[in-house]
């Protein structure tokens, strides 16, 4: 089901009306379940193509129900490994392509279902959550239509409090806030992201495929612009989708966690990952990074080992996070790049206070030029690493890297760093001024402003879709 379609809008409207028509918690839970089942069914070709997802969910539930009150570590480790193994098999990771199932099936949403099942298994074993979920609650948690495709990855505790809370009549303010959020999402997804995608498609086609006779500098320039356009496309597409689902959650009075917090204002790569796809980063921090750190630090308690242990934990976490994004060998390269970025960032943070002294480093961190260059480098590195997401074949990626060469990549990195730093220096204060000036007016004329915005966005979406001659798709559901 395309998010920019009458089908999706009608589906949302019917779901919200049915949900709000009742004041029974159980009836609302059934509305969510039926809506989610319908939503997921639109991604399935037939009943057979849904069977792997059903089996995956069933396996997860059997493992959860089979847990004793104090399960052994072996059981928990085996359960987690079994879920990860099934996931790798169903997603057909590149090293498993020879042993796949003999029919076509859907894997959409599987990555996020895996996150939720693992968190339930681990949290239950640590007694961080009370009691096992009922089958209905388990399905609503793992397959809720607002979070099924690409998160946000809500914790069970947060989900449960929303799922079981007593219904209250929805207020006009809640409706307006939710509609405003949905309008923002559609604006980002269907207009801004679509424009970036248009730029990306038009520039990337000029140096890809058969265009091998181009001068080196032109190739580097076209690559740099394409890569920047793809980053803009991915960000506005993904954060727009998040705005839409969080807004729909608002109409259902079901609070979902935020997933983005101005990621390109990050002054380092590690800070960037606290602002981009935040719920996924938090998941990896909780269920991979922290356990690695705790286990290793308990064995090597001397503080002099902290930095090495930290680098090891960062490397593993970012490598796995990168590989998780896709099933081809390209994503191993993406994972290595992510791990390299995280480790280089941490090493810099360790080395600089030693080189300059703590006061010297603190003083450097406050300098505007240093801040802008750090922001620019973070954007540039992430942008170049994202090349893995738009060159799905490893040969294609290495071919492109070969044509650019190390010098081309460095020129691209430098150009993106400086351009981003310059643009951010100009735009960040302007954006803040506009926001302050408009926020007063927005509060005063909130209702009229929200309705006008929604109407404007609908018109703009129709207009832009007609010009571009296609309805924008949600890109992250492929990962």
């Amino acid at each position, binding site marked *: 089901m395309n998010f920019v379609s009458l089908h999706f809008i009608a589906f949302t409207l019917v779901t919200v009306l049915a949900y709000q028509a009742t004041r029974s918690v159980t009836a609302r839970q059934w509305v969510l379940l039926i809506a989610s089942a319908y939503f997921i069914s639109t991604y399935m070709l037939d009943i057979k193509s849904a069977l792997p997802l059903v089996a995956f969910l069933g396996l997860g539930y059997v493992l959860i129900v089979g847990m004793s009150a104090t399960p052994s570590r072996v059981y928990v480790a085996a359960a987690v490994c079994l879920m990860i193994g099934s996931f790798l098999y169903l997603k057909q990771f590149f090293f498993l392509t020879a042993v796949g199932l003999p029919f076509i099936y859907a894997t959409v949403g599987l990555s996020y279902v895996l996150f939720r099942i693992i968190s339930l298994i681990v949290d239950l074993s640590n007694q961080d959550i009370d009691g096992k979920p009922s089958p209905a609650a388990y399905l609503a948690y793992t397959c809720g239509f607002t979070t099924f495709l690409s998160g946000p990855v809500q914790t069970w505790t947060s989900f449960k409090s929303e799922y079981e809370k007593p219904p209250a009549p929805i207020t006009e303010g809640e409706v307006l806030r939710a509609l405003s959020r949905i309008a923002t999402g559609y604006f980002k997804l269907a207009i801004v992201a679509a424009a970036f995608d248009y730029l990306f498609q038009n520039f990337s086609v000029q140096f890809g495929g058969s265009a091998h006779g181009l001068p080196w500098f032109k190739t580097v320039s076209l690559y740099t612009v394409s890569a920047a356009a793809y980053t803009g496309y991915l960000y506005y597409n993904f954060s727009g989708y998040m705005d839409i689902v969080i807004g729909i959650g608002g109409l259902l009075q079901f609070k979902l966690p935020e997933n983005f917090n101005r990621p390109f204002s990050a002054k380092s790569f590690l800070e960037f990952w606290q602002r981009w796809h935040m719920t996924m980063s938090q998941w990896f921090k909780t269920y991979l990074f922290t356990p690695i*750190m705790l286990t290793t630090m308990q064995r090597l308690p001397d*503080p002099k080992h902290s930095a090495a242990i930290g680098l090891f934990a960062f490397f593993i976490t970012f490598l796995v996070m990168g590989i998780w994004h896709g099933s081809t060998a390209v994503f191993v390269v993406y994972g290595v790049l992510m791990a390299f970025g995280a480790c280089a960032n941490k090493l810099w943070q360790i080395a600089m206070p030693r080189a300059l002294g703590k006061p010297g480093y603190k003083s450097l961190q406050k300098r505007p030029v240093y801040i802008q260059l750090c922001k620019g480098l973070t954007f540039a590195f992430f942008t170049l690493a994202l090349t893995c997401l738009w060159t799905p074949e490893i040969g294609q990626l290495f071919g492109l890297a070969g044509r650019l060469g190390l010098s081309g990549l460095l020129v691209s990195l430098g150009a993106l760093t400086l351009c981003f730093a310059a643009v951010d220096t100009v735009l960040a204060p302007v954006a803040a001024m506009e926001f302050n000036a408009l926020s007063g007016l927005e509060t005063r004329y909130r209702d009229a402003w929200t309705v006008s915005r929604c109407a404007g966005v609908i018109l703009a979406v129709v207009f832009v879709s007609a010009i571009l001659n296609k309805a924008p798709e949600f890109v992250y559901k492929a990962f």
Partner: protein
Amino acid sequence: MQQNEKLQRIFRDVFDDPTIELEPTMTADDIAEWDSLSHVRLMLEVSKAFGVRFSASEVSSLNNVGDLQALISSKGGA
């Protein structure tokens, strides 16, 4: 030794800063050295000093010093 006093001593040791004065609202943003690495070390030192165990979820979900104080109390840390 009071819980807060003991906790303050651990913070000062881990972050190597004898001037730290703990407040329940204090977060990682208030102490420059409080990053994800030192946070795990901090939690291990707290675990040792108060005789309690923390799960990875608990280690990752704390928002401020007040949350940590409440968590230690809920586990009967002494």
